Structures are given as structure tokens and as C-alpha cells.
């Protein structure tokens, strides 16, 4: 690391790389965009596609607020480069409701009052959708463990677990 820093002093002028073209299928819609290589998937969704439902919390992969589904699997979009996901299917909180009806997880979060401020909620719900698809969690304890990547500073955890259980039973 020290060597890397020495080799690239802050003052060094390097040519700015060109923006790269990529294609994503976002919530079922094929979307073409041009982004700098360092644009995270999170910033691409929020700043380039105006899909601000996905939240930036810590921006370091610790809080889970930025969780989205990529090809059906949950990932931290803040630690994912958009260019690496060229061609992938991305599902955000905006893409879960279908035909005007809430996704069962969205309804369950309302039924169980599973949020207070709501900032972590899009990430919680996308993560829970991934968890249900994985099919590994059955008990409340397993749900808690496999949802451990999503932090809720309001402390709504018991209600979040109850909501996920409800959606799981109905899916």
C-alpha cells in the first residue's frame, strides 16, 4: 500500500478515463447509460436514473440501506461498480410492486409497523426479497442472522422480523 501511494502521488496528473457505455435492465426496462468507471451502481441508480428509492447510508457496505437485487441476488450497490454489471437485471424498491399492488413484503412492513424513519426500509425490503428467494432462513433466529447486513437505527428489528415472516408464509 505504501508503495502504491508513493508511486501515485496526489499531485500526479493522470488523464481522466472516458465514460463507458453500459446497459442494465432496471425494473424490467432496458436502460442504456454512460458512466465513469468509478460510478457505483448506487450512484448510477440515484444520480443517472433518478431512482432515489435506493438509499445511501454509510456508502461502505456496512448498513445495507443500498441493497438491491442484481440477477435476483441481493448486493450492496454502494460497493459495486456499475460497469461491472453491464447486461444485468437490477431490481430496486421501485420495481417490486406489480400491477398497482404492493409487494407482499411492502404490505407486511405496513401491517407490522416495521419502520420508523423509513430510511433503511428500501434496503430491508430488497434484502428480505433476496432472503426469501434464497430459502435458507426458516426461523426468526435465522431471519435475524441472514438479515444482519441491514441496520435499522430506529430499532424496528422485532417488527421487521415479523413482517418478513408474514411475507415468507404467504409467498
Amino acid at each position, binding site marked *: 500500500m505504501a508503495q*502504491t501511494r508513493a508511486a*501515485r502521488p496526489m499531485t500526479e496528473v493522470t488523464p481522466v*478515463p472516458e465514460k*463507458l457505455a453500459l446497459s442494465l435492465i432496471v425494473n424490467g426496462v432496458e436502460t442504456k447509460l454512460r458512466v465513469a*468507471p*468509478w460510478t457505483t451502481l448506487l450512484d448510477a441508480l440515484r444520480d443517472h436514473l433518478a431512482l432515489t428509492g435506493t438509499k445511501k447510508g454509510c456508502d461502505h457496505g456496512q448498513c445495507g440501506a443500498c441493497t438491491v437485487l442484481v440477477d435476483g441476488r*441481493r448486493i450492496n450497490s454502494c*460497493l459495486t461498480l456499475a*460497469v461491472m454489471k453491464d447486461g444485468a437485471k437490477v431490481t430496486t424498491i421501485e420495481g417490486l410492486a406489480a400491477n398497482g399492488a404492493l409487494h407482499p413484503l411492502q404490505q407486511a412492513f405496513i401491517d407490522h409497523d416495521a419502520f420508523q424513519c423509513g430510511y433503511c426500509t428500501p434496503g430491508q425490503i430488497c434484502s428480505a426479497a433476496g432472503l426469501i428467494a434464497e430459502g435458507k432462513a426458516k426461523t426468526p433466529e435465522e431471519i435475524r442472522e441472514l438479515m444482519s447486513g441491514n441496520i435499522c437505527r430506529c430499532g424496528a428489528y422485532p417488527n421487521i422480523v415479523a413482517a418478513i415472516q408474514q411475507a415468507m408464509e404467504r409467498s
Partner: protein
Amino acid sequence: MINFQYSRVADVADAVRQIAADPEAKFIAGGTNLIDLMKEDVERPSRLIDISRLPLKSVEETADGGVRIGALVPNSDLAYQPLIAERYPMLASAILAGASAQHGLDRRQPSAAHALLLLL
């Protein structure tokens, strides 16, 4: 985050060529760890060479009774592999305890190879 060049490789030979051509380049597989370090200005690669699409995602038994794990097998995939879960339950537990479900080739984005390096 710092500026850098990005390229995707076609095969392993291409990856080796590209990393050899630029001493300040780094491979990126899942990216969970590297991107975080770049955001913290700990790592400052000139180029990221994306190896995430290389066909290194299999888990195979070897003739001498061992297991060969592809460098790009996602952590969660590895932990839940019947071969690993049954024969190496401590490894499976350690992988699952080591990161959240959406972390790296996430427990999904970090690659298992990287996680093993961290565990060993």
C-alpha cells in the same frame, strides 16, 4: 473515489497480460473489500481489471480427496455447497459468520477465495 481506468478480461491469459502490463493495476472480482479501501484512499490503483466473468466458479472434488474451489465462487454459494456444508462445516460456518448476506461476491459479492485469505 479516485479516478481509474477499467477493463474487462476475456480469459485468464488476458488477465495475466493486463496485470503484467501495469504494475499499479489491480484485479477486481467482487469488489466489496477493494472498493471500500479505494473510497478510504487506502488503495489507489491506476486500473481495475475485472475478472468477475472468468469461468472460475466451480467447486470440484480432487482425486486425492480434497476440494478445489474456484477463485470466483461467491461466499454464500460456497458455504451452502453440499460438499462444503457436509465435509467442512466449520469452513461453511466461518464464511457465513464472516460477512452479511449481501456483502461480497457479497457473502454474495466477495469472492470465496478472498474470504478464505482473510480467514487463514
